[in-house]
């Protein structure tokens, strides 16, 4: 199954994106105040998407075969390109320096400038459904069937593996995210629960709070967060 997924991806590789800079906008009237400084297009594929750094100073376009980076502080000037068939689960680290890459059960952190792999996060036994880096860049959380994992983002060490909700049911992980102060991890589960746990520190009582804070708020199985 895993091999089949990659095969499909390769067949879908599109041709390179095209980029043009335009001087004129398409205003309603001649004194419209908006000036169009960038138009970037690509051939859409199953894995083409646009991502922004958290400070929205940088944008990347993933066209399925490469990542194109744009400097939004310089009116969208293209800065560099990384070649590779990345999935659309790719995301910027909160500091904008790195990219979190999920390829089925492989999770890694790469340098956004060079593409060099900086850290891998091992141990996943199934497809990773969602992942997030804490705003202070210290933690990485991943979600999959059979649990939520919390890693040390710098060393790749597994800090905690949550496998059960408060009622004893196994966790089928959905979206994960962190609170703005990086102190809490929030996870939606496919059982329809929202779980919240303390990241700091993961011993004794604190570890149980993921289970302890599970709340049955959503009935739909298609839970997705929009952030904290």
């Amino acid at each position, binding site marked *: 199954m895993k091999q089949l997924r990659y095969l499909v991806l390769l067949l879908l590789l599109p041709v390179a994106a095209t980029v043009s800079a335009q001087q004129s*906008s*398409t*205003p*309603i*009237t001649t*004194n*419209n*105040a*908006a*000036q*169009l*400084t*960038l*138009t*970037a*297009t*690509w*051939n*859409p594929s199953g894995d*083409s998407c*646009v991502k*922004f*750094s958290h*400070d*929205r*100073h940088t*944008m990347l*376009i993933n066209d399925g075969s490469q990542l194109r980076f*744009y400097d*939004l*502080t310089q*009116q*969208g000037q293209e800065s560099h390109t990384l070649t590779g068939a990345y999935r659309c689960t790719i995301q910027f680290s909160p500091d904008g320096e790195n990219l979190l890459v999920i390829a089925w059960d492989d999770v890694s952190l790469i340098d956004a400038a060079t593409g060099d792999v900086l850290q891998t996060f091992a141990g996943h036994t199934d497809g990773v459904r969602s992942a997030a880096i804490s705003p202070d860049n210290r933690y990485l959380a991943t979600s999959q069937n059979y649990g939520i994992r919390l890693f040390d983002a710098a060393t790749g060490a597994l800090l905690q593996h949550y496998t059960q909700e408060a009622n004893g049911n196994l966790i089928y992980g959905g979206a994960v995210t962190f*609170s*703005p102060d990086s102190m*809490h991890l*929030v996870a*939606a589960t496919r059982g329809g629960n*929202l779980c*919240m746990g303390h990241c700091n520190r993961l011993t004794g009582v604190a570890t149980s709070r993921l289970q302890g*804070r599970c*709340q049955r*708020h*959503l*009935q*739909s199985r*298609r*839970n*997705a*967060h*929009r*952030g*904290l």
Partner: protein
Amino acid sequence: MAYSDLNAGFRLLNAGNGNELQTGTLYSSGSVAFSPDSQLLAVGTFDRNLMLYRTTDGSPHLSLEHATVSVAFNPDATIVATFGEDLYLWDTSTSRLLATYAVPNNVEELAFTGDGSGILTVASNEVQLWQVDPTASSGTVRCPGFMESRLTASSQARVMPGLPNNLRAEPHSDAEELGEIPSGGTMTVITGPVCANNLPWWQVNYGGLVGWTAEGYGDEYWLEPVG
């Protein structure tokens, strides 16, 4: 904390105790966003309204009749951008329409740049970056459901031949009627427009009487600029 779910809508929860502060429908899965300062939650609802809620207690901050597939705040949360037929910029404190831009009609996502000087419109295979200055008085405004406005703040306007214009206490058809401005009557435009009932409302001073009046409806202008 907020969730979105295209089937169930959105829920605004207090992250500390899990209490539900607000809930509602969504126009699309992308039509919900927090302001950068976390004070406001913007929602494009399924029944075609743009709602801003205060996150402290979930109470409505402002409401606009406008269907939007995406919402985005500028960095200091003074402006919220929406996309209907055009790209709209709204003042988050007064709900005034600041600017309208014609952009490709397949926009799925909006984003301000980090410095607030640009807006990105994202479609399925195209991104465009627009440098905007919504504070510029030269910006074009067009309320949803109406033509381009011909009036501007701090200018003179006149009621066109025909029926008189109602002057109301608030920018809404249900608001208290303060008086009428007859055909040919001139007024000073103070600020606007605020879009409600498919009408662009301007706050005006007519002979010392200050209130709100509509510029027109459908394909008809009721007011015209003077000079």
